[in-house]
């Protein structure tokens, strides 16, 4: 029994459950980071405030290679109007998933509007090649309540916990069985 565990790198020892908890901590933490930045990065909308369905208007300036403000927050069902002006060269505004694509000129206001009918983060990006970082010129509309974020986080915890639990139970099962086997041969 010991021979093999040593091969695998670790001595067999007591408190395996806690050991596993420690390990899953390592992994969950890192994963948490990953998920956070890819999906949302600290953009939890305030739960309080009036319900959706309002008219919301934002003035946005575009420059190489970002929009300002970088992130706006609305609520599900709001009608969002963006008034966009460029500070430097010609930019664009393409809203992911809405098929809206407009040009943004210096000193001239472009107005786009859409209904925020998807929870989570809606990205919009520059659609006119405006310089080297053009493909990464991205702005964000966070539509709260952010079900996507909470769903993803819950899934993460579930998946991590579930895997640990499953592996642990399987481990116990195997140990029981091998103990039976040893008893049988003894």
């Amino acid at each position, binding site marked *: *029994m010991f*021979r*093999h*565990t040593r*091969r*695998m*790198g*670790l*001595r*067999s*020892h007591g*408190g*395996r459950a*806690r*050991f596993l*908890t*420690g*390990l899953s*901590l*390592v*992994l969950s*933490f*890192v994963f948490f*980071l*990953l*998920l956070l*930045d*890819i*999906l949302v*990065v600290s953009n939890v909308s305030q739960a309080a405030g009036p319900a959706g369905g309002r008219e919301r208007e934002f003035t946005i300036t575009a*420059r190489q*290679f*970002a*929009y300002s403000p*970088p992130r706006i927050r609305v609520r599900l069902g709001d009608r969002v109007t963006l008034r966009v002006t460029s500070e430097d060269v010609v930019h664009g505004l*393409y809203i*992911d*998933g809405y098929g809206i694509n407009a040009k943004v000129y210096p000193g001239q206001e472009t107005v786009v509007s859409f209904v925020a009918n998807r929870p989570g983060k809606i990205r919009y*990006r520059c*659609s006119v*090649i405006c310089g*080297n*970082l*053009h*493909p*990464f010129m*991205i702005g*964000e509309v966070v539509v709260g309540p952010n079900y*996507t974020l909470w769903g993803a986080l819950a*899934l*993460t915890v579930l*998946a*991590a916990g579930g*895997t640990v639990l499953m*592996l642990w139970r399987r*481990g116990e099962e*195997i*140990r029981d069985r*091998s103990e039976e*086997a040893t008893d049988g041969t003894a």
Partner: protein
Amino acid sequence: MAQRSTAIARPILRPPQEVAWRKDLLGYRPVRWLVRQRWLQFALILPNLFVFTIVIMAGFLGTPIGAKNFAIIFVWIVWWALLILVLVPFGARIWCAMCPIPAVGEWMQRRAFILWKPKTFGLARKWPKGLRNLWVANFGFASIALTSAVLTTRPIVTGAVLLGLVIIAAVTHLVFERRTFCRYLCPVGGFLGLYSMAAPVEVRRVDAEVCRQCQFKACFRGSTEASLRVGGVGGYGCPNFEFPGAPMERNTYCLLCTECIKACPYENITIRTRPFFQDLQVEKGRKLDEAYKAFIMLGAAIMYSIVMLGPWGRIKDWANFTSFSGLLLYAAIFLGSILVAAPALHLVFTWLSRVFAGGSRPDLKKLFVDYAYTLVPLGLAGWIAFSFSFVLPNISYALSVLSDPFGWGWDLFGTKGYPWTPYAPHLLPYIQVPTLLLGLVLSIKVGSRWGIPLPGKTSPHPPRPGGRSSPSLHTWQV
């Protein structure tokens, strides 16, 4: 092929216990024929060299607008997507078998494009002992990664860096033996090696006993007149300093170049499929330099997601090297997080889990290194998720660039006018989250293997032909 009379019996090509997941690819005649052809690698390299030449030309001569330049789109979107989404997860370092970067140097060193010649050209020096690790490659990768916002968006920088790599590789081939460049210097090779451990294919010896009795060791030393009288088609000793007969137990440094298959007089090396992430169970060979690669890669994936995909213009300015102070700040943050913060975090959690574990406590450094390998599935998933988020929105540039590679107004295939079309950008989270979750589950699974009793432990199993112990195989079928 089989009617040779030798002192040692030829091994059975198919390992006796064929299990689901495990197929001996050389059991298929056409495959066996193909990998024994000397022209195979040349044929793989040639098209890539052609594309590579256009990339370098476009980099230096083409338009400076990245999105309209073949170099940027084909290297950082098309090649990168292929590499991280397909080639590495499914084909290990198969890219290295067709990579044009070391080709020029290797051809000079071998004085041949295709043929096997016993004598090589160049000084054939040995790489200094103290540098026989991944540290140079790690720091090379970290510094290139630091410049990535510039490198991946300015054609001239891409062209210059790639040409620079070719030149360094060529010089290295003339001064040092074999592919010293690929083993110890290439910034790409390090992460290919790390993530190739995940891939479901492997080049391995078949029968340990045949290797033990083999007096040629041609897989490492290369074919000789004597070994050729017994068998083999004339092959170089492993270009990447592996000794497949020793045996080789992980994919990390195998370039899938098939030289050992050609050289082995007993046809004792094969290519097999296998379960994913198998190599992560191999304790032998785990080292701090490789572990660091895992932190660097995971850290870089996280940093890039914030810098490149985030909405913050200031950070993009820093990464774009627009001011010196910004550059310094960015360098400190970027390098600090991938080289210091990520490993430090890992250390803290390793230490914690050691404290929690109680009982006989394993050595902290060993634990630190061992656990780093559990980050491989997660890191790979992180890179796949990150890559989707710039590949899907931008891959449509490839069509227009194909017709007008230099941005000179050509329209070779009539696709120049193809408009920029982001593919399913709003569905990205629904692709990324499951990818990451899968990475997480696999990471935990890989790690838990070391803490949980495994089946088969009480009854000693005979070692498998691959030299791998059976329990790891069982648990994969859970």
